[in-house]
């Protein structure tokens, strides 16, 4: 990366030097042609003066004309010919045209080079900065559960604990480990998705079955956290998508909804689906913490944190919704988030193209 940058900087420097050289060349050309024209005019003025001298010395007009044909002779006197003067002006324009066009072309090409190189440099700086931010955020996301894990372990080593206290610490550690495990897989997923290095299929997926599978895995957790989890997805809805991607987006949205509802000590999460205009819409509505009207775009950004204990709770990786949006984009679908405000619950809507009806 560093070598590329050195190379780009050198190239930029060379191009800038070239621009200066072209500028110098234009100046030099201008100076040279002005000088040449001035010399020609002086020489011509001398010719006129010589013709005048010859005429004054008694030479005939015909003789003088034969010797100095470019000088106009009329009424016994010599004068500059109009045609010669016009030729001088024409010559001047010709030269100016020549160097202006030539230098213009070179300067245009060089400016293009400067633009391309500086754009590449800027893009690279931006990428590096994004990578730094990403690393800083990733390390922050890991250090907190790590610190919690270390604290729990060292507490166990240092203190005399009752069986109940020890159980609490073990549960905490298990949750911290699960958080880190989820984080690792989500970071890998998000990096792959960001670089487009995923092989996604486009095939008919039965939405009701896909939602049912994911919901089944979270029913126990929902019960423990006093969350009523209901689904209303008609069996005949078939979407055109990647089956694994559908599983991941439904799972991430459900986890997000459960965290948002758990933060307000219980409530409801409802899945509903319908077909509309060649698409199938799946909505996930929760009665959780919700978010402010201006936060709906920020939700889908990497590591965005809106509330403590809310949709981006301590268990969240800050990557779940980012992955949802990216997967939906890559499979030709859309996702949108809606909330009336903080504390008012939230609605997430996924849309996929509907699969063409299979002949029965």
């Amino acid at each position, binding site marked *: 990366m560093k070598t590329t940058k050195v190379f780009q900087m050198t190239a930029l420097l060379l191009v800038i030097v070239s621009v200066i050289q072209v500028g110098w060349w234009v100046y030099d050309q201008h100076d040279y042609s002005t000088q040449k024209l001035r010399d020609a005019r002086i020489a011509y003025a001398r010719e006129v003066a010589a013709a005048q001298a010859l005429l004054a010395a008694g030479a005939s007009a015909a003789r003088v004309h034969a010797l100095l044909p470019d000088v106009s002779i009329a009424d016994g006197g010599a004068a500059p010919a109009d045609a010669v003067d016009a030729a001088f002006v024409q010559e001047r324009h010709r030269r100016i045209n020549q160097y202006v066009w030539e230098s213009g072309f070179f300067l245009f090409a060089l400016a293009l080079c400067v633009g391309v190189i500086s754009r590449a440099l800027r893009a690279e700086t931006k990428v590096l900065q994004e990578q730094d931010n990403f690393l*800083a955020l990733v*390390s*922050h996301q890991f*250090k*907190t*559960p*790590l*610190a*919690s*894990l*270390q*604290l*729990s372990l*060292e*507490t166990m080593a*240092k*203190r005399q604990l009752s069986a109940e206290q020890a159980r609490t610490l073990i549960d*905490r550690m298990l*949750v*911290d480990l699960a958080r880190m495990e989820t984080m690792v897989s989500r970071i890998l997923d998000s990096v792959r998705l960001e670089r487009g290095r995923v092989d996604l299929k486009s095939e008919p997926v039965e939405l009701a079955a896909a939602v049912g599978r994911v919901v089944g895995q979270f029913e126990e957790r929902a019960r423990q956290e006093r969350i009523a989890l209901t689904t209303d997805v008609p069996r005949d809805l078939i979407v055109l998508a990647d089956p694994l991607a559908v599983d991941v987006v439904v799972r991430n949205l459900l986890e997000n909804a459960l965290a948002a509802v758990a933060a307000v000590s219980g409530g409801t999460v409802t899945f509903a689906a319908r077909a509309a205009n060649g698409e199938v819409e799946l909505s996930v509505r929760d009665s959780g913490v919700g978010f402010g009207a201006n936060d709906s775009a920020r939700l889908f950004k990497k590591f965005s*944190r809106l*509330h*403590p*204990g809310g949709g981006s709770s*301590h268990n969240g990786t800050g990557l779940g919704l980012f992955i949802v949006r990216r997967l939906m984009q890559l499979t030709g679908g859309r996702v949108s988030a809606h909330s009336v405000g903080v504390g008012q619950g939230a609605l997430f809507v996924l849309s996929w193209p509907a699969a063409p009806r299979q002949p029965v």
Partner: protein
Amino acid sequence: MSTAQVSAARTLVVEDDPHLAAGLAENLRAEGYAVDTAADGRLALAWLRENSCELVVLDVMLPHLDGFTLCRTLREEGNNTPVLFLTARGDPQDRVLGLEAGGDDYLAKPFHLDEFLLRVRAILRRWEWYRKASATPQSAVLRFGGNEVDFRAFRARSWNGAAQELTEKEAMILKVLAERPGEIVSREDLLERVWGYDVFPSTRTVDNFILRLRKRFERDPANPRHFLTVWGVGYRFLIEDAA
């Protein structure tokens, strides 16, 4: 927020991660401290405006109001409660930022429980010493060269009549020097007494604080008569004019 116990040193743990907050609170309680907790910067600031405590354990990356801003706000409001920063960002630049914001110490996550408790004890011990050393009407006020320092109020009036608000560190340095007038106090000694063992990487910080004190209290800071440098060792504080 939990309710505080009475009698023991009261601490406030400001941490948005519930596991970490619970772990810290349990361990502080096991050491005999009374503990309150706050899950974000705004809640913590509101709590600190209503209540007082001997130490704030403060996470840096917090929802609503980050730890640095919270600490700076407290100091601007004249709240000198000692702050121990806990943060996932452990680079030296960040450490300096934290201390400049008015923090007393800085611990990077993940940390060892014993080190955390050691630092808590060290901060509380320093404050305990400061409070005890400023307990009597005589020790609470220092007069030198027309200046008057009130250690309990963190205020001073300098020789030209200007009112001065002292930071906790300035007050502590003055206290250490005033305890041993006329004696040489090394920079390391000042660091140890005021900041603790390894908070700052260099002793130059002490020099900067001495410069600030000279600006506040010397008639001619370039030719000090009270805060004298002893080259290569440290400082000597004189109550009477050096001339």
